[in-house]
């Protein structure tokens, strides 16, 4: 089972929910930090990193002695990552999407495999939970390929909890596709609601069952709950604003550490998610 913890708006408590859920689950669960631009789960789970791998992606390298400046590579590249100026080919590796088109069309076989570093994947044992995290290289713009690599690094036998990046564009999609359930963390404010609607739109496009966690549930208004009702999105957990939680968070401590009674609530949350997944598979069969 793969649960992807997402949120349209950043800072709603996505990492808090993902990490607390993972430790409440017990053994057989791995946390994947796919928020590769700002991976934060390690600040709470303190994994001891024992393995690390650099992830690269293909970029063309042109052998000038073979190149006849025919421009075929520049013509096929939709991303302006390779151009010919005069008799010279110029590659802009940071614009390359690694489609390999230039290499396929080159009649002189002048293009060989080069690499651009996307970032690293790290493995380590955290507080009771194994953690796999991606960390994008500073200055690298494309996170989806790294996110896909982090996901591929997980053992499929395991229960997987994904800490997804915020937003609704391609990085989030890479962290949600193929999940069994999306747990959407939101807050009952106008910003929270607005971004939630966008994120739910993305989830619906992917056709994955989804439920909500409302964080800082007592600070704001009732419009998120109204929206959830209208869209038939189950609210699976509400976490009130508590200075104790906020302060613990600020020092890198989890809710279940400062208030162990929450462990039970996160276990219940997990049970509810399982029920929701079952219910949605029945609904699909009925249709």
């Amino acid at each position, binding site marked *: 089972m793969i649960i992807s913890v997402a949120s*349209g*708006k*950043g*800072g*709603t408590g996505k*990492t808090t929910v993902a990490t607390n859920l993972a430790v409440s689950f017990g053994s057989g669960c791995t946390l994947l930090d796919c928020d590769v*631009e*700002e991976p*934060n789960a390690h*600040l709470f789970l303190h994994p001891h990193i024992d393995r690390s791998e650099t992830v690269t992606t*293909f970029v063309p390298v042109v052998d000038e002695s073979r190149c006849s400046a025919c421009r075929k590579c520049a013509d*096929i590249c*939709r*991303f302006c990552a390779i151009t010919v100026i005069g008799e010279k080919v110029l590659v802009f590796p940071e614009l390359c*999407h*690694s*489609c*390999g*088109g230039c290499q*396929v*069309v080159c009649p002189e076989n002048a293009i060989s495999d080069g690499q651009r570093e996307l970032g690293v994947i790290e493995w380590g044992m955290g507080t009771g939970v194994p953690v796999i995290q991606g960390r*994008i290289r*500073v*200055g*690298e*713009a*494309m*996170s989806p390929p790294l996110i896909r690599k982090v996901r591929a690094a997980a053992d499929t036998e395991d229960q997987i909890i994904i800490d997804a*990046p*915020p*937003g*609704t*564009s*391609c*990085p*989030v*999609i890479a962290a949600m*596709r193929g999940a069994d359930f999306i747990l959407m963390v939101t807050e009952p*404010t*106008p*910003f929270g609601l*607005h*971004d939630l609607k*966008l994120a739910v*739109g*993305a989830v619906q*496009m*992917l056709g994955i069952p989804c439920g909500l966690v409302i964080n800082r549930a007592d*600070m*704001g*208004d009732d419009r998120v709950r109204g929206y959830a009702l209208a869209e038939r999105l189950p609210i699976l957990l509400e976490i009130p604003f508590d*200075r104790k939680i*906020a*302060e613990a*968070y*600020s*020092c*890198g401590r989890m809710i279940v550490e400062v208030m162990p009674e929450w462990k039970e609530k996160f276990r219940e949350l997990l049970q509810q998610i399982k029920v929701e997944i079952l219910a949605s598979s029945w609904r699909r069969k009925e249709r």
Partner: protein
Amino acid sequence: MRELVVVSGKGGTGKTSLTAAFSHLADNHIVCDADVDAADLHLLLAPDVKERHEFMGGGKAIVDPERCTRCGQCRELCRFDAIDDEFVVDAIACEGCGVCVDLCPVGAIDFPIQKCGEWFVSETRVGPMVHARLGIAEENSGKLVSCIRREASRLAEANGQELIITDGPPGIGCPVIAAIGGATALVLVVEPTVSGLHDMVRLTDLASHFRVPCLLCVNKFDLNPEMTGRLEDMARERKIAVVGRVPFDPLFTEAMIAGRTIVEYREDAPVAAAIRQIWQNIAGSPAMNSYGIRITS
């Protein structure tokens, strides 16, 4: 012309609420919402849309089953596994590289250009605003950010406005890179948490990569005064000017629900006074007043 970009690394630090407050305090300026993926500034500034433009991204491949001979060439070429064994392209997986389109031996693949968002020029009570909406699950957010920044500076030029205040996207990836290149200065809105500290380091690394000076503003500083001190020490170490601290205050949420900026909602509140002071510090900071660092295009 100068451009101030408000960024946060981690989302949800109060970046948009502060951007809105700054834009209420500044004169003769344009507001630009470059957080195109989850644009929220309009909820506080209630823009009256004057112009609406389509934003066209790249193409997506569509195999025409009538013309397709099922030779399998496209499936072999596609590095994104976007074409299934029935020769149907998964629009979400398709990267839009067009390699299959160009190399299909019978020319059976179409490549329609996709509309992937919209951008707007609007009037608000604090001045003109340029903003956008990226389609759900779309790529090209960086291009849309560049597009609206270009429009904002064109408009400012035409209207004789001196300043652009931009609400930047979260993270350090493609949209942020597009939002900060060539800016006059960045205001980092950071919360005093371990995540805030961690993200601030990555963000300032990125800023120095692009040679843009940073200013630090700690939001909700009283949630962890010790961590606030650490953030400010880190800032000084990295030659980042500290422009102020904002206390935690539920008034932010109330103002948001009322659709007002915090400085309008409760003018006499201590938090409003703190923000006015911060704005003075930003406007008077050396970073915002040293001409010649901006790469004019």
